[in-house]
């Protein structure tokens, strides 16, 4: 299903999400198209619903290929960093923060998209994955690069609604699977 159809098919109990999604995606004024679709892709990948990821990638494919690749890279590498660094900040023993992570993350340097865009996508993925330290660090980097809070909030808003849509789709797919079993 394409993204519009997927959103349209969201159940009645998720009407707020349906409306939020369509206005955030279709009436977007704060993010550039690459920022918007990269955020949608990164958030969808991070939220781990198959249908939503497929729809997001299909819709985003009109963007430059390096945008889509880089957005996927952001979600991929945040999938790792959000776990590792969330741990180091959750645990009371501060020693972990000074141990070398020994995790390759070279794509953060070689992603090929704009620096600001990539940081936005990382922030969105980190928001979905719930790593406080990561969210803090990426937000700070964005502001240093001159990005306003409004733009960051716009990206996180999308991450929030995409994530919510993913949970609803998971639930609906579970129901459908049980019905056809």
């Amino acid at each position, binding site marked *: 299903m394409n993204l519009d159809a997927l959103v349209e098919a969201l159940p009645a109990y998720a009407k707020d999400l349906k409306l939020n999604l369509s206005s955030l995606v279709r009436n977007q004024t704060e993010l550039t198209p690459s920022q918007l679709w990269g955020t949608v892709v990164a958030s969808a990948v991070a939220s781990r619903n198959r249908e939503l990821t497929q729809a997001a990638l299909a819709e985003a494919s009109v963007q430059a290929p390096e945008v889509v690749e880089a957005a996927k890279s952001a979600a991929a590498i945040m999938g790792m960093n959000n776990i590792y660094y969330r741990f180091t900040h959750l645990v009371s023993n501060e020693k972990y923060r000074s141990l070398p992570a020994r995790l390759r993350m*070279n794509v*953060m*340097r070689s992603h090929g998209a704009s620096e600001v865009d990539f940081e936005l996508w990382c922030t969105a993925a980190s928001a979905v994955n719930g790593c406080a330290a*990561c969210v803090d660090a990426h937000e*700070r980097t964005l502001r240093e690069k001159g990005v306003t809070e409004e733009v960051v909030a716009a990206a996180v808003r999308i991450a929030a609604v995409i994530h919510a849509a993913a949970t609803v789709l998971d639930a609906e797919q579970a129901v459908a699977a049980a019905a056809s079993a």
Partner: protein
Amino acid sequence: MLGVGEEFPVYSLKATVSTDLKKAFTTLTHQDFAGKWKVYFFWPKDFTFVCPTEIAAFGKLNSEFESRDAVVLGGSTDSEFVHLAWRQHHEDLKNLPFPMLADIKRELCETLGILDAKEGVALRATYIVDPQGIIRYVSVNDLSVGRNPQEILRVLDALQTDELCPCNWQKGQATLHPA
């Protein structure tokens, strides 16, 4: 001996790349493989005992080095024809996936400072050179002691693993700026 932080020397050498006489020889210079990491490893003499096991071991790990954007280049002070004969002769070297440099004038090994003073041939030296041509790792064994290519791979991994994520920022530190 040239060490970490120094520029790998300028060179232009014949190299043997296969067992087919028609296609075996090429010329390689320090400017080839731009943008890649380079793993140079030298051995004393072709046709001796320790060398083939090491070289074949590097060959088996070649795809791992490739995945890490690294090119493996073997070398000794033997000529390109001796390299060819050795590759043709030894079962483990027939399909070696990387070139053997022929430093027959000993200029590269001399500049590197890895010639054994008594024997005049290369010691078992290994260099990891970054895409900017800077030496980032060097190790040298005496003539009779073989190397562990897995260890070289480990070092390459470590050299390539940078904590680029601002997530690692500690209060009070300057922020990371990915290049």
